[in-house]
């Protein structure tokens, strides 16, 4: 009923407000995660947001094919690897915005300001509370050690989240050491890699293995459905003294397209998405962390405890993604 009212309100607003302006968004983030935000934005500003969803690869191919005449003003996607690629392909333009500069920390945006992280996703460890003492766990790297033989479950290497994680390792340790580590992971696997984070966690809960690596919001969603599962979050790499210590984080984010027809409106949309009000909504819809440091995470999310994130610029993950994929192939990580 409430949805119905909101829809009616939106239609009314669209009918009465003289919405001369509109912004067109190509989004690789799902409809149910972005539509509530765009609706809120339209209610507040009268600016209509037209959007289409698809996977990031096809959307980038579409942007490239349309070239100068693309109707898209904003490209919105998950993972810095994809954002970096869009910028590399020349699909985005630099944005000079004090608001975005103030709201989004430097390591969560493109050094050339072509894209900005809008929510933070932490990739961390989840373990079986019946079979692992928290003291046993330390870091991503340690999961390659013999003590975890037959106790590790992983999602497939085809997912960009794992590619970014390994890319960051390459950045920290170089290719050779990273490859040995990934080989160690593969040796420790209790089962072939799983198609998604949830399946991997379910295998941990079922006792097939003891620990896995997932994005926290998948953990949140699973526990909401099945609170009795013997699973808990562990924040790795907190003890290391090195400058690059910390939990691997990535972003979902957006940039203004190179040939945007409404560039000023596009920037205003991004600025609004980085503001307190939108950040609460943006991250809470999906149990992610706000990118804007001044905004507190949702209480559900905050209950998992605080952690020190890895502060390397997430753009590095994009640069090294292809290397990471080839490395994982060589290491036999399917």
């Amino acid at each position: 009923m409430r949805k119905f009212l909101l829809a009616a309100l939106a239609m009314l607003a669209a009918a009465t407000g003289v919405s001369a302006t509109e912004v067109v968004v190509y989004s690789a983030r799902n409809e149910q995660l972005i539509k509530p935000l765009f609706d809120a934005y339209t209610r507040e500003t009268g600016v209509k947001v037209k959007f289409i969803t698809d996977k990031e690869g096809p959307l980038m191919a579409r942007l490239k094919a349309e070239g100068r005449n693309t109707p898209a003003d904003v490209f919105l996607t998950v993972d810095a690897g994809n954002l970096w690629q869009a910028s590399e392909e020349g699909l985005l333009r630099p944005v000079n915005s004090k608001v975005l500069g103030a709201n989004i920390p430097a390591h969560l945006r493109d050094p050339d300001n072509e894209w900005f992280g809008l929510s933070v996703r932490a990739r961390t460890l989840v373990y079986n509370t019946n079979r692992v003492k928290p003291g046993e766990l330390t870091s991503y790297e340690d999961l390659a050690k013999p003590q975890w033989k037959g106790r590790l479950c992983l999602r497939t290497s085809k997912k960009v989240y794992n590619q970014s994680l390994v890319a960051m390792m390459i950045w920290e340790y170089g290719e050779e050491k990273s490859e040995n580590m990934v080989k160690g992971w593969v040796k420790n696997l209790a089962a072939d890699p799983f198609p998604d984070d949830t399946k991997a966690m379910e295998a941990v809960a079922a006792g097939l293995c003891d620990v896995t690596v997932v994005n926290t919001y998948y953990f949140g969603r699973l526990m909401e459905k099945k609170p009795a599962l013997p699973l808990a979050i562990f924040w790795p790499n907190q003890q290391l003294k090195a400058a690059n210590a910390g939990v691997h984080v990535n972003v979902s984010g957006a940039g203004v397209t190179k040939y945007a027809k409404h560039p000023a409106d596009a920037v205003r949309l991004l600025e609004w998405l980085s503001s307190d009000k939108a950040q609460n909504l943006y991250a809470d819809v999906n149990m992610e962390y706000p990118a804007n440091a001044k905004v507190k995470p949702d209480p559900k999310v905050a209950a998992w405890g605080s952690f020190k994130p890895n502060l390397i610029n997430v753009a590095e993950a994009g640069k090294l993604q292809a290397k990471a994929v080839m490395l994982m192939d060589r290491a036999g990580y399917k």
Partner: protein
Amino acid sequence: MSEGIPVAPVAGASLAGLRTGPWLVVLPIALITAIPVLVVLSALADPDQEIWNHLWQFVLPELLGNTFWLVLGVGLGVTLLGVSLAWLTAACHYPGRRFFSWALLLPMALPAYVTAFVWLGLFDFSGPLATWLRDEFGIMRPPPIRSRGGVILVMTLALYPYVYLTARAAFQGQGRRLMEAAQSLGLSRFQAFWRVALPMARPGIMAGLLLAIMETLADFGTVSVFNYNTFTTAIYKAWFSLFSLPAASQLASILIFFVFVVALLEYQLRANRSYAASTRASATPSRIRLKGWHAALATAWSSLVFGLAFALPVWQIVDWASGIWARDLDERYLEFAWHSLLLAGLGALLVGALALTLGYAQRLHPTSAMRITARLSTLGYALPGAVLAVGIFIPVAWLDNQFIDTFGLDGQVLGGTLAVVLLAYCARFLAVSFGPVESGLGRISRSVDEAAQSLGVVGAKRLWRIHLPMLRVSVLTAAALTFVDIMKELPITLMTRPFGWDTLAVRVFEMTSEGEWERAALPAAAIALVGLLPVMFLIRNTEHANH
């Protein structure tokens, strides 16, 4: 078809001597598929040596083996299931036959990757079966569903309806007299099936089998759920993870070449023998009455396949959907369903008409040039959907840019219109319609044409008055297949749909891409429901056609 139309002169010596009339119709149809395929392959001009070397060394060996076993396994599986069930429901009488004759088609309405996910949910380590085995018997590792055998099993269950439908149309077309004739010549019923009915149905069976194989090669969803590496996953990896479109198209070109050779071989094998029935299919099929354990076995076999391929997944989907429908089902679903129906309906009509045109032109002019052109027109089905979608989108955007620049237009002309979506469906699904139409035309004896000719019934009139009525089951089969395929289609719809134009399949994508399988169940169930009603109607119709 246009035999009466004056032939326009065509430049180029290679076409000299050919009758250009049909080519004026066939070439544009062939171009619809050829252009996207060529666009994808054009990236070959810019090879990416480093990535190609890597793929060659670390990726290709595994995926060649995997793809080979998958095609072999699924091919054998769908033939076994499809032919046996088609024969039982078309030619025999046993308890439940009436129900199974249409119910065995139902799995077709479920997107294969939905079935895959359900199976994985039920039989993987964390599923109810494994949990039960673990709790009751301490079996920690039951035979893994995520294995080569598991993928083959699930794909077979999802794809056998292609063979079932085309084989059934073929068996029905034969009528009963054929078997009676064979038996009167001293063959046992079993021998008559093997030596007469089955060979006669081969074009139909092959048409369905070829579709199932092309679908297997192009599949991305199912193999991803099982994390089973094939050509498709490698193409996606080269493109989306290694950011190399050239490497992706190198892989795609191997795939296309392979499929083309298979399709030509199949046609060549078939072209050497004629399977046309000498008379119009008998209108009174008296079915073989199975008795005793034969009947029990037939019912059990049909029930088993129906249960595993449809009842089980649907039970799980309904279970999921029942938990969330109150929260998720809103008036938008009417719009999703309407969009899906409209696209599938228009698509099936258009694709069916093109397939009929192509098939007819090939019948009138059975030259090898025509045959190869027809085969080329069906290659789109073997390309992974997202790859084909890009191949279509690039020329559309290029055309749009020409329009915009030339005429100073404000926005796109073609892009974002339903015309592009439908055009793209033609490129992808021509194979789906062409197979049944071609095999149906093949069953019409040449003597029918000659008789018609002698009576002065030629050209479009002959198609309309003589062939179409005889082709009814084949054309309906073609349309039904295409309709259900479009209902489930995703990558092309995603890429080319107008803003805000969401379908049920798009809704499934939105939910599953975030791993929300329970919420994806609702649109998946709607696809099955909305997609099946017309198909069930068609099947009943074809049943009555032979009564």
